[in-house]
C-alpha cells in the first residue's frame, strides 16, 4: 500500500528553495502526485528526494494570458474565462481521466506526465527505460502511434497539451538552480520525439520546473473544439483526439477560413500538428469538398503498426465530424 523505494520529502516554501533542492542527485518534482506516486510505487521512476511544489501558491493563478503550472485540471475545466477564450482547452481538461484525477492533477504535471505505454509501465527494460528495444513496435500496439513513431512508438497521454498546441501556447520553465533563470518554449517544441531522444518526453531538464503556460490571444472571432475518442465514456486515454481552432474571414462561417490549427492527440509521441490539413483549409470555404480534402491530407503521412490501423480511420472521421459541426 506504500512505495517500496526509500524517499526523502521536502515541501518547498518558495520556488528558489525547490530549485535549489532539485539540483541534488535523484531529486524529482511532485506537483499533484497523481502520476508520480504510481511511477514511484511501480519503480518506473526512481527518485531519492521528492520535492513538493504543492505549497507554492503563486504558481496557481489563472489569468487571461497565463495559467500557473499548479492550476488543477478541474479548475481549468470549469474556469469561465478559459471557457470563453480557449474553449478547446476547457473541453480538453474536462476530458482528462476522472473527477478525482482532475481534482488532483495539475497542468504542469499533465504536460510532464510519463508515458502510458504498457511495456514502459510493465516489466520491460525498453528503449525508453534505457534498454535497446521498443517492444510495442512489434507487440501489442493498438494504443500506439501512427505518426512520428521512429525508434519508440508510444503516444503522449496528455489531453491539455493537444489543445494548448492548437492555441500556440508557450511553456515557461524556471531553473536550474534559481528562479531568475527562466526560459519559454513554444509548446510544439516542448515535447521530444523519440527519433531525437527516446529517453525523455519533454525538454524540461534536470533541475528545472515548469511554472506556467502562456497563451496568446487567439485570432478575432475564432472558434475552438476538442473531441476525444476513447474505449469507454470516461476515465480513459485518447485513442484519437483533435483540437481545432479556426477563424473565418469577417467572422462569418460562410466565408473562407483565414486561420486554422488542427492538432491530433493519442496518435503520436507528441501533440501532432496536422499541417497539411491546415493548408487544405486556409483560403477556402468550409464546404464538403474542403473538409474531405483536409481529412485526407491529415493522414497522408500516417503509418500504421500491426494493430492500430483503425486510428487512421478514426482521425479522418473525427476531423470530418468536427469540421462539419464548425461549418455551421
Amino acid at each position, binding site marked *: *500500500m*506504500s*512505495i*517500496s*523505494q*526509500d*524517499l*526523502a*520529502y*521536502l*515541501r518547498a*516554501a518558495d520556488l528558489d528553495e525547490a530549485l535549489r533542492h532539485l539540483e541534488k542527485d535523484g531529486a524529482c518534482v*511532485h506537483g499533484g*502526485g*497523481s502520476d508520480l*506516486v*504510481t511511477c*514511484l*510505487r*511501480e519503480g518506473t521512476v526512481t527518485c*531519492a528526494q*521528492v520535492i*513538493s511544489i*504543492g505549497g507554492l501558491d503563486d504558481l496557481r493563478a489563472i489569468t487571461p494570458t497565463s495559467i500557473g503550472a499548479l492550476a488543477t485540471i*478541474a479548475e481549468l475545466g470549469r474556469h469561465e474565462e478559459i471557457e470563453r477564450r480557449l474553449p478547446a482547452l476547457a473541453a480538453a481538461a474536462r476530458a482528462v*481521466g*476522472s*473527477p*478525482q*484525477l482532475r*481534482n*488532483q492533477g495539475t497542468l504542469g504535471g499533465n504536460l510532464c506526465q510519463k508515458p502510458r505505454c504498457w511495456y514502459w509501465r510493465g516489466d520491460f527494460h525498453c528503449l525508453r527505460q534505457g534498454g535497446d528495444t521498443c517492444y510495442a513496435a512489434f507487440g501489442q500496439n493498438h494504443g500506439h502511434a501512427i505518426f512520428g513513431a521512429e525508434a519508440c512508438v508510444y503516444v503522449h497521454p496528455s489531453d491539455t497539451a493537444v489543445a494548448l498546441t492548437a492555441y500556440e501556447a508557450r511553456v515557461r520553465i524556471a531553473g536550474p538552480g534559481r528562479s531568475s533563470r527562466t526560459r519559454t518554449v513554444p509548446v510544439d517544441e516542448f515535447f521530444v520525439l523519440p527519433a531525437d531522444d527516446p529517453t525523455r518526453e519533454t525538454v524540461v531538464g534536470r533541475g528545472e520546473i515548469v511554472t506556467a503556460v502562456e497563451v496568446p490571444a487567439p485570432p478575432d472571432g475564432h472558434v475552438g473544439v476538442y473531441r476525444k475518442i476513447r474505449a469507454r*465514456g*470516461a*476515465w480513459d486515454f485518447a485513442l484519437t483526439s483533435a483540437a481545432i481552432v479556426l477563424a473565418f474571414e469577417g467572422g462569418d462561417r460562410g466565408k473562407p477560413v483565414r486561420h486554422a490549427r488542427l492538432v491530433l492527440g493519442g496518435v503520436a509521441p507528441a501533440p501532432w500538428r496536422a499541417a497539411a490539413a491546415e493548408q487544405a483549409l486556409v483560403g477556402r470555404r468550409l464546404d464538403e469538398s474542403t473538409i474531405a480534402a483536409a481529412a485526407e491530407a491529415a493522414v497522408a503521412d500516417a503509418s500504421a503498426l500491426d494493430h492500430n490501423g483503425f486510428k487512421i480511420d478514426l482521425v479522418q472521421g473525427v476531423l470530418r465530424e468536427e469540421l462539419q459541426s464548425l461549418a455551421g
Partner: protein
Amino acid sequence: MRDRDDSDASRRNFLKTVGLGSAALASAGAGQGRAELAAVEPEKLQKILLSINGRQLSVLVEARWTLLFVLREQLGLTGTKVGCERGECGACTVLLDGVPRYACLTLAVEAVGHEVTTLEGLLDGEDLGPVQRAFVENDAYQCGYCTPGQVMAAEGLLRENPAPDLEQIRVGVSGNLCRCGAYANIFRAVADAAKLRRGGGA
C-alpha cells in the same frame, strides 16, 4: 456541510485511533490551522498533524507512505478501501478539503494542512449519513466493495452541486468502478441522496 453530533463521532474516532494504530498517537484538538511540515528524512518516522473527520491527529509517518496506508493501517479507518492502487478503480476515494480524490495516489505528508474526510466522517452520530442511507435504501451495490468510494464521490459531488441531473451524477461517479455493475441503482441512490440532503439537514 451539515452539523453533526461531534462528541459521539470524536469518541469513536478516538477509540479507533488509540486502539488500532501502532505508530499513531491521538491528540485532542490541539494545533488548529495550517500545520506546517518542511521535510522528512528517508527511513525516518516523522510526526505530522493530520486533520481527519474534524479531529486533529498526530501520526508518525514515513515520506513514502500513502494516505490510504496511513488511514487504514495506522489509524484503523478501514472504511477507505484498497483496490488497484493506481488511480484506476476509485475504491480509495476520500475528500480533501471537501473535494474527492484518490487516497492511493496521495502521499500522507501531502495531506498536512488539509481537511481529510473519510467514509467514517459521513456518519451522523451513530447513524448513517444521508448519502450512505440513500445507498442502502436503493440497494446500490451487490458485493459492496466499491460502495465506500462511490459514497465519497457522491458526497463530493453533492457538496459542489446539491441538485445534479442524471448526466452530472454519471460524471460525478465516473471515477469509481463497480465490478458488480450496480450502476443503475448507484445513479438512483445519488439522486435520492441529493433530495435527502436538501430536504432538511438529513
